[in-house]
């Protein structure tokens, strides 16, 4: 198969088509819309700058997801994981099931949380999530199962 260099237009097309999916997924991760927008813009800028290093071993969109999520992780590190402490605080004060579930969502281990977010907001398949996170599809299935189990306990506790 002949490899074709990635052009700015290829990246722009993904940006225009999938902007909402990127912003929603990153906002869920960071807990802030302004930061999410900045991360998505920066991630795509990095993809544009580094497009020469794309090796076509997976999809272009999967490669961009990896870059954007790396920028988001850097942002979380810069913030000293403030998101986690906010979530714990919110959990202790929350009265409603919705608030509590949100707290539990953001308190999930990172891989489980990202798998849930990419599945729900970006409508990615298990294979695409695996590509975006750099893990095997089977690991995605396990992460999603574990996340649902953790959340189901809370839901059942309320419903019964």
């Amino acid at each position, binding site marked *: 198969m002949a490899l074709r260099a990635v052009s700015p237009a290829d990246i722009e097309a993904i940006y225009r088509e999938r902007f909402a999916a990127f912003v929603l997924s990153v906002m869920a991760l960071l807990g802030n819309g302004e930061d999410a927008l900045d991360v998505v813009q920066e991630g795509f800028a990095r993809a544009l700058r*580094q497009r020469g290093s794309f090796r076509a071993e997976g999809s272009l969109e999967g490669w961009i997801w990896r870059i954007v999520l790396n920028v988001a992780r850097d942002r979380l590190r810069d913030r000293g994981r403030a998101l986690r402490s906010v979530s714990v605080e919110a959990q202790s004060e929350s009265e409603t099931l919705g608030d509590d579930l*949100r707290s539990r969502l953001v308190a999930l281990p990172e891989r489980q949380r990202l798998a849930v977010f990419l599945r729900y907001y970006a409508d990615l398949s298990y294979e695409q999530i695996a590509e975006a996170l750099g893990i095997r599809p089977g690991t995605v299935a396990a992460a999603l199962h574990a996340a649902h189990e953790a959340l189901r306990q809370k839901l059942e506790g309320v419903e019964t």
Partner: protein
Amino acid sequence: MTDLHEALDGLVRGAPLDAADWNDVVARSRRVQRRRVPRRLALAAALLALFALAGTAVAVGFGINFLSQQEQFHAKQPDDPQRIGPLVQITSGHDWALIGWRSNDGLCLDFAVPHTSPFFCGLPVRGAGSSSAGTGAPIHAVDGFLSGSNLVGVSDGKATIFGVAASEVATVKVELADGRLVDTELFDAPPALRTDVRLFIVRLRLGALERTVEGGVHAFLAFDSDGRLIERVPV
């Protein structure tokens, strides 16, 4: 799972979904990247600085060490543009070096200092664009006479501005945010870079207040050999 869907929707309430701005992405892609040098390299650089402070003669010059530093630095970053030529030192001081290299994303420039190492590639300057490897259409429809960085490397009390100018450019000046117009040093690209562009750099000693100011460059000005302004590039 309606409750779960509601919880997920609640996490992204008010998301800026109408804020897509491709032009902003393109503009960001032109900016200089700052990156931390791995701790081991930073430690090595700090040790070298200690030797220098103690008056110990260090046989190996800083420039050579920075070439080695940058070699390792880029080798560990698989997402960096792919290097297709040697790292070439353009100029240096006792604790910094300006290094150029050809990549599959055009000419790249590293401002190598201990601890941080800003670099950029694929500047929109005629003669410095996509190389023979080719990576598709250029980002910018028209390449200009010059392009450069904003203030970088301010930790040592000096700010550095560096960039690329086309071969027709005889002088590059930088217009600072405070109104000052400063001259830069301009160098022909060394033969190993296989390009006829010129590289410029200026290091400025700033006051305590200015040291904290981001975005200190207002514009770059290119002059021809007759002293005529041929391009002003606002930042």
